[in-house]
């Protein structure tokens, strides 16, 4: 049985994501900068992940496949990080506590190894598919 843990997710800026944005969200730079997750070593161990393994992250409002990487910026156990952007926003809850601002940081997610055959989708596929405009890889 696949392991699955619950973590507290934050999504914030990274400098790689910043560079990715200005290069373009359909570039490999952006893809590699944003389709990742960072966790504490204890949580990586608990999931039994090998470096750069794909995981599925699921929140109250969606899920996304990202790559589990070892980040420079240490988290405490139970806390997880996905850089802000298209991948994070597949799972960020839109609830705003009547402030206008979505719950970009501090929402529960479950993380599990991605099912075999699953891949990280392109930004275009994620966004266009969400609004019913995805026509497949042409």
């Amino acid at each position, binding site marked *: 049985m696949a392991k699955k843990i619950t973590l507290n997710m*934050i999504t*914030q800026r990274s400098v790689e994501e910043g560079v990715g944005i*200005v*290069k373009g969200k359909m570039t490999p730079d952006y893809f590699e900068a944003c389709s990742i997750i960072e966790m504490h070593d204890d949580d990586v161990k608990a999931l039994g992940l090998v470096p750069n393994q794909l995981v599925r992250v699921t929140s109250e409002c969606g899920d996304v496949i990202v790559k589990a990487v070892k980040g420079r910026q240490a988290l405490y156990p139970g806390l997880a990080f996905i850089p802000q*952007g298209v991948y994070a926003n597949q799972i960020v809850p839109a609830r705003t506590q009547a402030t206008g*601002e979505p719950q970009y*940081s501090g929402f529960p997610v479950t993380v599990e190894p991605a099912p075999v055959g699953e891949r990280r989708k392109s930004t275009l596929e994620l966004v266009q598919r969400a609004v019913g405009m995805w026509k497949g890889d042409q």
Partner: protein
Amino acid sequence: MAKKIENVGCPFCGVCCDDLVVTVSDDGKKILEVENACIIGSTVFHRAMEDRHALPRLRQPDGTYKEISYDEAIDYTAKVLQKAKKPLIYGFGSTNCEGMAAAAKVAEKAGAVIDNCASICHGSSFLAIFDNGYPSCTLGETKNRADVIVYWGANPAHAHPRHMSRYSIFPRGFFTGKGHKGRKIIVIDPRHTDTAQVADIHLQVKQGHDYDLFDAFRTVLRGHDIPDEVAGVKKEKIVEAVEILKKARFGTIFYGMGLCHSDGRNHNVDIAISLTRDLNDFTKWTIMAMRGHYNITGPGAVWSWQYGFPYCLDLTKRDIAHMNPGETSSVDLAMRDEVDAFINIGTDAAAHFPIEPVKHLRKHPWITIDPHPTMATEISDLHIPVGIVGVEVPGIVYRMDNVPIQYRKVIDAPDGVLNDEELFERIYQRLCELEAEDAAKTPAKTTPEGVRAGE
């Protein structure tokens, strides 16, 4: 012969570095070199010329885009605005103030909601400022006077790469000749960020509990006892940090999305402001929001002088403006299905909103105004290209400390491409024409009145 242009402002983040030197080709069309910028800023200039469109593109029934003229695009936009009962115009992180003023004129004429990226970024700061004020300073004050710097829920090493070197930790100023050596740095963040690497003290706060930690700081500052641990931080560490704050000659708290994006949002900032105010009973303290885009402070300034509100302006009543984030904020409007047309300008809502509001907004006409293709252009009905402010279009932008910086043009926009101000002025003209046509058809039409019960 290449030409060097000096004192160029950087069109990326709210640090608004204005010391860039950009070398352009003799014909003024190509950027050859960018000096002094961080990696992100320099990329902005280099990518400016790539991937551009000279004409608006309209989505066809088969899902592809077809190029149309600016006139057709302006007519289309004006008609969408006119037809909708409550259109939303959102973005403005990357336009100049002239463009924002023109867009507000359009929104007022069309009866639209107009909102900017602060809505999902530092909007919480505005809410806190409404409730509790803002004891702040310009960045030069921090540079010249500060001996204690706090970054709370902010990670400039990633989000504002030159912030620490230009204004806060490293620079030598008038009273701060020792630079970094003369300063104490406190970083408060649930992660040991790259910014925390340069800190003297890093307090690893439990995510989402900053408010509790601020309350502990304030309680200690007033001489009361606190529990042994608050928000994951030991009492001794809190007491030690409070002593440093009290003994500062001049301090600045820089805070970021760690406060605005987590539970409590505005109240995390609200209590940070209370702490700053309290500290002024002992010594001099200031606080500043680490604003994101280079001109995201701009719309807050422009719309405040035009309407008295910095964001989330509901102008649908045409008589008076109404603002209440939670109701008139873009994400809430989208999630509640309260708007029926969307114009996305100078930001990429499709990438930066959570995907749910994107789905809601996409039920209605969606127009994107942006120099480059973005996620938003890829799901829009219409993409109108414009010049890049700070690269191809000059204008005033407001730095994170509300200081206006005059930005320059370094190269020409692609032939025929309008700037934001011109585009909105023409949409405004078209709206006036449509209104006149309507008035000719129905002469006795009454104008709606404002939300003003009780009178």
